[in-house]
């Protein structure tokens, strides 16, 4: 168990940057930069163990109860 203080938040982990070199619409870009679902309940998000090993991880957390269901490494895909 590590203290919450050691971790720093990195936002919604389901947001994907549009692929480089491909034609994308303004709407795609908007969705990447600004638009968020931010719902109540299960939420995949990025955290960094900033005051520790400095690794980025993906965490599935309940935004109402803060219960944590799953964690993944930053490069693992959310299934």
């Amino acid at each position, binding site marked *: 168990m590590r*203290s919450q*203080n050691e971790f720093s*938040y990195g936002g919604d982990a389901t947001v994907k940057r549009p692929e480089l070199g491909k034609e994308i619409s*303004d*709407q795609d870009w*908007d969705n990447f930069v600004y638009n*968020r679902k931010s719902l*109540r309940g299960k939420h995949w998000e990025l955290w960094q163990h900033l005051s520790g090993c400095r690794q980025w991880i993906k965490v599935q957390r309940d*935004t*109402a109860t803060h219960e944590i269901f799953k964690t993944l490494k930053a490069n693992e895909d959310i299934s």
Partner: protein
Amino acid sequence: MQKYSVFSLVKNALSNHENWDLAWKDPTPKKEYDVVIIGGGGHGLATAYYLAKEHNITNVAIIEKGWIGGGNVGRNTTIIRSNYMHDDNALFSEFGMDLWRRMSQDLNYNVMFSPRGIINLAHSDAQMNTYARRGNSMRLNGIDAVLLNREEVREIIPMADFSENVRFPIFGGLMQPSAGTARHDAVAWGYARQADDMGVDIIQNCEVIGFDVSAGKINGVRTSRGDIKAKKIGLCVAGSTNILAEKLNMTLPIETHLLQACVSEPVKPVLDKVVTFGAGHFYISQSDKGEMVMGGDLDGYNSYAQRGNLPTLQHVLTEGIAMMPFLSKLKMLRTWGGIMDMSMDGSPIIDKTHIEGLYLNCGWCYGGFKATPASGWTFAHTIAQDRVHELNAGYSLNRFNTGHLLDEKGLGTKTWIS
């Protein structure tokens, strides 16, 4: 409606205060209204009031899932100000300041508006320069701003830490003398009482659970107390905006985050201004009861919890003690939290949507209490006339698409650090 006055107070005292009228009724929802406002917070109530008062639209319902005033309007720290640099924010907020000054008279309800002044402290030369620039922008827009040096600040708030060996010495500050506070509950109740009197139905314990949309038009809402038809619907649900947006298949430039506040035990009058720390997020004022009212950072991750966690509170209060060391001697009386509709540029959205008859009021971040009258006034105009007023033209939904952001603090889209 009974007018509240010293005479009605005396008259009712003679009958042991047993014969006061109810401040608002508890109607059963009708099948159809001209306008339905979702959310009985400050903004929803003010919108209904101005729809009736300014536009003569009184066949209106406010649908509130809990009780009116139970959301952020009853949880905030009541700071009212217009110390903005960008024209859109400055003009909108200063229009609101005028409404605040008249509010107790207009509503026949004492909202205890107290224009005691706000001081934003500066802790470096660079920050003094930024404040000079902001102060000048404010004055160009007709808003009062005074740049204070260290000695002038010391005269006003001698209890702050002016010793030499501190990490963030006070260089000076920017003051808006006309800023202040008001009693938040009274604002909600005052608008509710007048709106009810003009014919608005205030429907509590009624949750909106879905929408009836067809062919790009809104026809009504589904609620926990049955379907209600309306050709015009206004969303004023603050921290629940993302939840209702999803039911409308809309994804908005909004994230839901938690903000905490706390009050100390009551003490004798010591602080007659609102003061903000300039090297982090901490602000403080003293309530009429004597409690020190304090707040600061968001909890830092998406949250619907409506109550906060300790690390943020500890962090915020550490800043408070750095600024005013006497605070360390006080006991904490209460802490609480509210869920905030954080927009991606820190400014709100008051606009029409791509669905005909559906209007959006959201993105208030942690500054929506002061906006209550101006938001209600402009939103009522937008709904009644089906077009935005020049005061809220800058608060469009598509500004994110066109690049016309209103990022007052220049912080970008990481809403949780703003």
